[in-house]
């Protein structure tokens, strides 16, 4: 599966699940009809734009690639985003740009999604705090339980 196909499938699964709020989706063709396209800014002024930001129990920041090996850099990028910006700032920036008025403090959860796991699980360069959404096998479980439950289970691993 291509990055585009995984991104669309994840977005559609999130949209169908009442337990999930899609806060941001960076659509492949740049036409952001369906959600905000939230850009986060680090203290160094650098911009980071997760492909998907979902709110279920946690606030999920998700990067999408076609291959797992292509997503390795994104794992490190996500970790750096939270480390340098801080969880509180991440939530504040996302909520402000999505126009959310809630003042809750959800946990931040990080994930990369990919269409093919060419690394067969993980590599030494994978970040322990970043979950893997292997979309070559995930759809059946997502279809059965819903994306929110699927994501929740990832945090229990």
């Amino acid at each position, binding site marked *: 599966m291509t990055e585009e196909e995984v991104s669309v499938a994840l977005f559609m699964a999130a949209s169908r699940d009442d337990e999930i709020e899609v806060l941001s989706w960076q659509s492949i063709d740049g*036409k*952001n009809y*369906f959600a905000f396209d939230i850009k986060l800014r680090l203290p160094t002024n650098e911009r980071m734009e997760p492909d998907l930001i979902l709110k279920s129990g946690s606030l999920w920041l998700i990067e999408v690639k076609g291959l797992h090996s292509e997503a390795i850099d994104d794992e490190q990028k996500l970790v750096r985003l939270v480390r340098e910006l801080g969880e509180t700032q991440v939530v504040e920036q996302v909520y402000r*740009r999505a126009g959310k008025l809630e003042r809750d403090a959800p946990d931040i959860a990080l994930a990369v999604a990919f269409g093919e796991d060419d690394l067969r699980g993980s590599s030494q360069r994978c970040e322990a705090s970043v979950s893997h959404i292997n979309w070559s096998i995930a759809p059946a479980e997502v279809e059965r339980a819903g994306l929110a439950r699927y994501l929740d289970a990832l945090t229990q691993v």
Partner: protein
Amino acid sequence: MALTIYCDELSDELLARQYLCRDGLSAATVERLPSLATAPEVLKPLLRWERHDWVIVRDGVIVCTVEFSRHGYTGDNGFQRFARLFRSASLGTPTIYFTPFSRTRLNELDEGLQAPRNVAPELFQTLLRMGETYNVACVGMNWPTTHDGTAAPLTSPAALPQLHQLCDLVRALAVTAPGASLDFVADNFPDVVTAMRTQAAIPFTGTATRGLLSLPVEMTESRWIWDWLPDGYFGHGKADKVLAAVALALERERPVVGEGDPFWEREGQAWVLFLGYQWRPDPASGLVALAAETADRMGLPLVVVWPRVFRDRNGADRRSALLALNEFQASGTGAVYDEAVRLGLSGDAIARFRDRVSTNDNQFGTYAANSKPGRILADVAAAVVLGDVILAPPT
């Protein structure tokens, strides 16, 4: 009845499948809009100009086009998407433009909000007028904005009712004869028409570079353009106008290229559009289409004056303009400086302009016949006055 929804890109297709394919369009075929080269005949006249986000075809006839613009274009760019709306209407097809009617100029990374700005009221006036001229519905629908003044996600509570109304209208137009669409919208969607009329009634300026020209004129000379433009036009506003003045060159004579009718030699009138910009296809195409709409309605030939664009990339006129620009930027002298002084710009204004001016060679661009503006101009203009020649295509 065979119905097909052609969608420009993936997001357009997702939107159509999720929200449009219901009721009368539930059995419609959804396809991606093909390229012009591979398009079926029914789509070619439309695609020759631009691509809409949705194109609805019923039994081999285009019955509705829809354009989404999350960005509410304002100021000089207000007509960025207009060429495709005009093309649709002039081909006898109802068209819908879904865009914020006003928006906040905001970089979403900025903290501060700035004042809301209206999308060009003239756009809505023109849509209403086009509806009457071509007897098809030409509709602007408001894409609601959110807390920061930018377009709300279509599936958010703020925008969803409007999206549903849009889809209701498209489904209705899909089974309505185009010739009956204007009355249909007026009778069944009066709130949409009222919102357009309200927007169209907002006062606006910026029409100084479009207007009537009494004929005959010595078209090949520059003098008539200087006389036709408002007094002091080049000396007021943005200093970049100096570049257009240099390209226009008061004393220049331009050869006529093409076998078109030399209508300018006879008594009569023409409608003129002056473009002082460099080669910028999207906004220029919209403004050309706007002028074409007026010329068509008045039954007049359209003359487009675009002096910062040259036909001959390596010609002497373009090279001398680029040399003058480079000299001005490097040493503050030469033809650009002399023209700025002649136009009455202050020393400070000239110095500030010199500090920021780019010497990129697209400042004096090259005309491309097989580009979007090239194709549009070939379809609508009776004469195109470029920096070095006058194009007079056969009509």
